[in-house]
């Protein structure tokens, strides 16, 4: 957590695209008349989906749309860390650095990001393709360390794999999400399953006849 302020670099204006506007209207319609302000998080999120980050004109546009004072929308935008208040690259890299990931080597992942993207978080890389940030637990601790690019998780990382991953993105490829090491599937043990391997577990071999019951 750190101080969250609006970026000093702000675009001139913001307008919801026709598609975003439809989405926002859908959210506004979910709340009773006079309670449109309840749609503020959804509206900001849709705006962020469109622009990549939350801008000052976006905050003001949302406030006007929902008849809220500007300060009320600013409060929401600065409260939730899921709203990016700084410009982001094409690929937003969110590195988990909470305890399990950190113990499993997230420092190396962060170092890779610093090397390949920018030395500081919330900074767009020179080619405009990336920006990275540290985040709190993303809930994939069994595959620690991990990071999120766009909406996909890339897990079981270490320094070199992270670098490879970022290079692949830079080339315009989209690597397969999920574990990147140990050849395992999702959160199974590396090298295949170690327990629950007995086929009889699954074919009814261990089932017992209930005494007295007709088959």
């Amino acid at each position, binding site marked *: *957590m*750190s*101080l*969250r302020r*609006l970026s000093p670099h702000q675009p001139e204006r913001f307008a919801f695209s026709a598609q975003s506007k439809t989405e926002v209207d859908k959210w506004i319609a979910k709340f009773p008349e006079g309670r449109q302000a309840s749609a503020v998080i959804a509206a900001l999120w849709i705006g962020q989906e469109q622009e990549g980050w939350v801008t*000052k004109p976006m905050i003001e546009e949302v406030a006007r749309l929902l008849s809220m*004072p*500007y*300060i*009320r929308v*600013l*409060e929401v935008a*600065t*409260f939730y860390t899921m709203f990016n208040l700084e410009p982001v690259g094409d690929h937003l890299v969110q590195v988990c650095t909470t305890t399990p990931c950190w113990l499993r080597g997230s420092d190396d992942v962060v170092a890779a990001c610093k090397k390949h993207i920018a030395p500081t978080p919330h900074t767009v890389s020179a080619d405009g393709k990336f920006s990275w940030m540290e985040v709190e637990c993303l809930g994939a601790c069994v595959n620690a360390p991990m990071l999120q690019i766009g909406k996909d998780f890339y897990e079981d990382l270490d320094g070199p794999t992270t670098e490879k991953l970022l290079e692949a993105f830079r080339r315009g490829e989209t690597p397969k999400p999920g574990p990147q090491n140990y050849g395992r599937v999702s959160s199974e043990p590396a090298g295949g399953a170690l327990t629950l391997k007995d086929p009889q577990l699954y074919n009814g071999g261990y089932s017992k006849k209930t005494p007295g019951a007709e088959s």
Partner: protein
Amino acid sequence: MASRKLNVNGVEIEADDNITLLQACEQAGAEIPRFCYHERLSVAGNCRMCLVEWVGAPKPQASCALQVKDIFPNKDGTPANIRTNSPVAKKAREGVMEFLLINHPLDCPICDQGGECDLQDQAMGYGRAAFNRFNENKRAVEDKYMGPLIKTIMTRCIQCTRCVRFATEVAGVPDLGATGRGEDMEITTYLEKAFSSELSGNVVDLCPVGALTSKPYAFNARPWELRKTESIDVMDAQGCNIRVDARGPQVLRVLPRLNEDVNEEWISDKARHACDGLNRQRLDKPYVKKNGKLVPATWGEAFAAIAARMSATKPEKMAAIVGDLAAAEEIKALKDLMLSYGDVNLECRQDGAKVGGGPRQSWLFNTTIAGIESADAILLIGANPRWEAPVLNARIRKAWTNGPVKIANIGTPVDLTYPVEQLGGADVLSGIADGSHAFAKILKDAQRPMIVVGSGALARADGAAILHLAAKIAGDSGAIGPAGTPAEGGWVGFNVLHTAASRVGALDLGFVRGHDMAGILGGGMEFVWLLGADEFDMSKLGNAFVVYQGTHGDAGAHRADVILPGAAYTEKEGLYVNFEGRVQRTKRAVFPPGDAKEDWAIIRAFSQVAGKTLPYDDRDALHQAIYKDALTFKDMHEAPAHLGADPAVWGAIGKAGPIDGKAPLECTIRDFYLTNPIARASETMAECSRIFVSGAQQMAAE
């Protein structure tokens, strides 16, 4: 109402279900420390200082956020045991205090709140003495800009959010907010814009620490050095109760005083911050014009010049105009003095308001300020209460917040901080009067409708006709109900909203005689006595000999032939009648500067020189004379009870006549911060005007 028994520290009490545990504990005589809780704001429950022990509950309870109805009795049926001084409660409070102090700077010696700081006091009362286990650096927060009146030292903020709730709920100007979260939470306005409320100064009082302090008062004095005088504000006609803090000969600040019936505990920024005008541009000795130039003179010379001129003037060519800040004493003395010369002209309505004469109810705010809270429909006619009486506007907003109130405005649309239906211009009035307009039905269906006629309507040429029509609408819509105060079930919904503190007192004393304002200014007067009157075009006085008796070198003093230096409201004892008809008294906090004297004493002294000695030698005798004119002055501090629906009273208000539907119907105040000589002399008010009024006009013009 349902209630239940509680055992607070061994004292058994019966507590109403709808109050909070904190209030119940106070009823039982227990003292509960608090920072975020404030009885006029919504409950936030975020400071945790009010923790108490509910015996049997697993954790200490935040008493401000726990309602009595949520407390169930013990298993054996005995009342729940609440402990506010048990080891559990004490430990909980000590813990909270320790957390609050982690990040609070130890800068009390240079903090303006020092000596009147809730955190200081409660740390002494409820904290752990000489104890600190936090060696980390304290958090530092950038200071924010909140306008010309509020100085911020945000590192001191304990995030109670009282200011945010005040701005949103009471002031109705949601400019303040809390951005960020957790340790990084900050109180700010949207991108450092000034907090644009006329009540903004109240957040300084609300702030329990030194995060928000008064900018004009910064580093001026310590609270224990100040001489505190309980008095009355005269910046508007509401008669807000204030405390004047002075050191030596100087008024340093003005704070509100609690009065539920008038101002609760708020005052406007003008009432609070115009006090620096009391020390600037003051008239401190008499002046007499010689060869076209004002030169200092003695009282004797000044009196002789006036007496000579007065005895040489025909009474019908003489006039006296009472200004907006005059107390009843000098109004009465001036009236008696002028009348001793014969058939003179007396006028107290500088803005030309067509009110006065007839029944007293025709110039009062009859509903009373507290009565607004029980109104269910309000029609404003040519009024902008936000500028005419900001604290009254907060009361209307309170009524709107608490219940369904339909509020409509006839006149220029204004932002009053609550939703108002804009009905249009003066031409709408006849529609409402004959019942054809939609709002007429709303008024009729309302249980307790209210009609407020503002200065904008009264000051028009057809003001008397509007007043008459408004009284008719009030009568037809059932706004004139049974006699008695609102608490007794009485109701009168016909109200006149004045802007001048002296106005009702002067009307009560009958300071309306002969020519009105237009007549005096265009009638070739040869002698005019201005009692602090500055609010009209002085060039229209023509060749008249002008005596200006007042406090400041303002418009009137520039035009004057003789200047008599008077005392401002902080420098004299004076009776002021607010727009409800409530008589209140100012007290002397400091002495008038230089040779200046109390105004009634000046007039009394002059009367002797002129050979028309007034029959009162002291204030008591003067008061007796005032009672002879108007018995209402005997009822101190009370708003008059309503007389009920007497057609003889309500039919005689104003004068029927044609109404110009096209002429603008708008507030006569052009600049809220500069409405009287004291405010115009104040640097703080000039700054406010520059930022809030001129700035707003610029933005509107863009």
